[in-house]
């Protein structure tokens, strides 16, 4: 029998709130966080709006001051969200069991801070081309701390040290699918017995000159500078790009039986991981939904669930014309005649697109939806795109609904698709009782 995995701790630092409770309240309220960018002077950019984490400087940092020096903005989000998740779970690695704890994170791609890049440019690329011989005099280019912060493993290293984790440790990056793939990898690691507990999540911050530039150049972000709170409108016929967000989401995952044995509060079962490659284009899935379809079906199969069990889909729903169309097409294929009975919302409508953190934060949202039997709003939907008309979108107000199984899609640039399946803990308990009964009957 497969080892099952319980979600016992949640943490979030997002534009919608710097902890789980305030984020959840804002998602229920359905009020978008889009606003003019304040992280830097974006006034000359084609898109000058984003969803930023507020009061980032006031985030409570761990007491280990040494850690803070090694932390960039997104690492600080990660440390704070992970701390919340560990406290919520009420458990931490001990010297005896630290080897049985793992850590898997989805990390952002933008690892070099703009200030350091700018310092190097002024020192050694004054004409626009790097002259390596002049790098020796640039302070940032010779600062080991700047190097440490720039490493793709900087985040996971900080978390391992902060919590004393000593088992499987990995950082993954599949663009917008990173957070989902991190949770999915963590699920597999516990299932195969390589760890009993895993701190899993994602963190990112691309609201910087180079980060925003990348998306402006591709025209992937909404240019609706004059109405930032309307810019993210997934599934609306007038949608025209995503709203860039930032932040971190973390969960504590535990082998089910041990979580039950210690009387842990279980938000949900992380029941299935579905993962596919679109192999179509770099930035889009096929309009037919090919790619996402396989991910959703694999997540259901992995969870031992069927489309009939699904009550909620937390859509990737970026608010780009192509993504929402492809995802709506995939839902029609996967859910078939039942597509109208699955409630759908994209919480990116409120907090924007957290890129490598998106899948992890949306995993937290699914756990909360199951826990509270309440579905967050797909904000800003005025006129549903006729190509998405078959979807039952949670509009205007949150919806009370017991969720047996929730799916969360994360579809990345590069064609990596992640779909996670979450199950209500009561449903899981029933399944376990049934399995025991069946195996007892066989015996």
């Amino acid at each position, binding site marked *: 029998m497969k080892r099952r995995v319980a979600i016992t701790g949640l943490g979030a630092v997002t534009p919608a709130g710097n902890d789980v409770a305030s984020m959840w309240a804002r998602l229920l309220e359905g009020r978008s966080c889009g606003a003019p960018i304040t992280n830097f002077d974006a006034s000359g950019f084609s898109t000058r709006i984003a969803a930023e984490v507020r009061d980032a400087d006031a985030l409570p940092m761990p007491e280990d001051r040494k850690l803070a020096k090694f932390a960039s903005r997104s690492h600080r989000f990660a440390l704070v969200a992970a701390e919340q998740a560990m406290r919520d779970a009420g458990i931490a690695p001990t010297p005896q069991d630290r080897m049985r704890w793992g850590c898997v994170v989805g990390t952002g791609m933008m690892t070099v801070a703009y200030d350091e890049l700018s310092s190097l440019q002024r020192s050694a690329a004054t004409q626009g081309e790097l002259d390596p011989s002049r790098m020796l005099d640039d302070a940032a280019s010779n600062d080991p701390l700047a190097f*440490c912060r720039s490493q793709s*493993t900087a985040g996971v290293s900080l978390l*391992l040290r902060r919590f004393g984790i000593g088992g*499987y440790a990995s*950082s993954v990056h599949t663009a917008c699918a990173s957070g989902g793939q991190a949770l999915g*990898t963590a699920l597999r690691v516990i299932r195969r017995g390589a760890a009993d507990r895993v701190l899993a999540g994602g963190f990112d911050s691309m609201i910087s000159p180079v980060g925003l530039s990348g998306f402006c150049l591709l025209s992937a972000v909404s240019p609706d500078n004059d109405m930032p709170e309307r810019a993210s409108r997934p599934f609306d016929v007038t949608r025209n790009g995503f709203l860039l967000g930032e932040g971190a989401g973390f969960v504590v995952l535990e082998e089910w039986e041990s979580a039950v044995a210690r009387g842990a509060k279980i938000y949900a079962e992380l029941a299935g991981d579905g993962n596919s490659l679109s192999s179509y284009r770099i930035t889009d899935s096929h309009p037919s939904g090919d790619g996402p379809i396989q991910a959703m079906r694999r997540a259901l199969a992995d969870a031992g669930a069927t489309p009939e069990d699904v009550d909620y889909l937390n859509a990737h729903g970026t608010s780009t014309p192509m993504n929402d169309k492809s995802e709506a097409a995939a839902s029609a294929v996967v859910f078939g005649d039942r597509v109208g009975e699955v409630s759908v919302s994209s919480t990116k409508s409120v907090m924007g697109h957290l890129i490598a953190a998106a899948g992890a934060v949306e995993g937290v949202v699914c756990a909360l939806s199951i826990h509270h039997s309440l579905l967050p709003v797909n904000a800003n939907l005025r006129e549903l795109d006729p190509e998405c008309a078959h979807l039952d979108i949670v509009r205007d107000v949150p919806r009370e609904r017991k969720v047996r199984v929730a799916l969360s899609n994360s579809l990345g*640039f590069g064609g990596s698709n992640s779909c996670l399946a979450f199950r209500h803990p009561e449903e899981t308990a029933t399944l376990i009782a049934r399995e025991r009964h069946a195996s007892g009957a066989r015996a």
Partner: protein
Amino acid sequence: MSRIVITGVGSISAAGRSAAETVDAALEGRSAIAPIESFDVSAWPRRHGGEIKDYNAAQLAGDRKVLKLIRRSDVLGLFAANQAIAEAGFARHRETLDEEGNVAFSEGTACYVGSGGGAFNVNYEYFPLMAQSGEDMKAFGHDLASTVNPMWLLRALPNNVLCHVGIRHGIKGPNGCITNHTTSGMLAVIESAQSIRDGEATRAVAAGHDAPVEPQQVLYYHRCGLMAQDAIRPFDASRDGSLLGEGAAALILETEASARERDADILGEYLGGGDASEGLGLLALSADGEGAARAIRAALDDAGITTGDVGMIVAHGNGTPQSDASEAAALRSVFGTAMPPVTAFKWVTGHPLAASGILDVTLGLEAARRGVAPGIATLETLDAACKGLRASRDTQPTTSDIVLTLCRGFGGTNAAVIVRAIR
């Protein structure tokens, strides 16, 4: 459970464009580490690295059109993956399948990639714009579209090799891109094998790639005290650090049933893998190598074998004083006095960071197929801190066809993979 066999290998390093060429260099005592040529380092305190010779992107990637969308590290990754897939004969086999069979093949093929490379210089495409706009961020934003390549973000994606291997070879199965510094490629092998064990895939492409020989990376490694003067001397008393190298490698893993059914050549068998971390910080290492020892033990358990079954160890051997000493301590604690021959390859290729674990697996497999643990030419006097290690200047015969490869990275991460060579 069906055995997992290896039916294709791709490998590129400064020393050669196949695993055989790099192993030949090791056996001949030739290191490919040399003064860096791709940028001017004449005034620098450290000037050496392992660069790919006669680099021709279009030829290496096998596709000119894709070049505007990828970077040097990706080119190497595509080369290795293409080489492995060609050896495994995917295309030939797919020609025999009907449409339904091809869909099943696509969806039953996993791809996991360990990615690194060019983390700093990818941003330098903004320098002309920054030089032009100075402190004026408004001008930066305004002139962006007319100055910077619109494809910049796509070129910068860490998961490009995964994306383009998928598109070129029609792969749609479980996948992942691991950006975990040095252990990335090794973890790609482990996750690939796991996707087959779990029944989610019938075969998998595992790849790793990196191109760390860039100015900022070389300088930072030096400032962190990790760079050697001119050579990597693993386990030697006079070792003084590591040097970076470019490289990529790939393995095709598949169920034995699938390989037999399509009559593929079987080069080896995947036996198991393990991973453990120390959690002391980004650069800190435990002196006794306890994390490395746990990763090795986990891999042995996973493979269902004991220390006595291992016929050769491919050590991480990066040449830094601390890492080599703690690695020797870890190997002593696991293998004691019954240690098989130990070799290492970074002294030949330089340290290809994210590619290093998987590159070493391909080189270890090739050497084991020849029955030898290549001598380490730069090892003159085994350091007292490394005593008990069966590493030598001279090539030693392997004691079995089973190879254990160890890989260690920043953050105190460790991974080990065990394969069996089939001759």
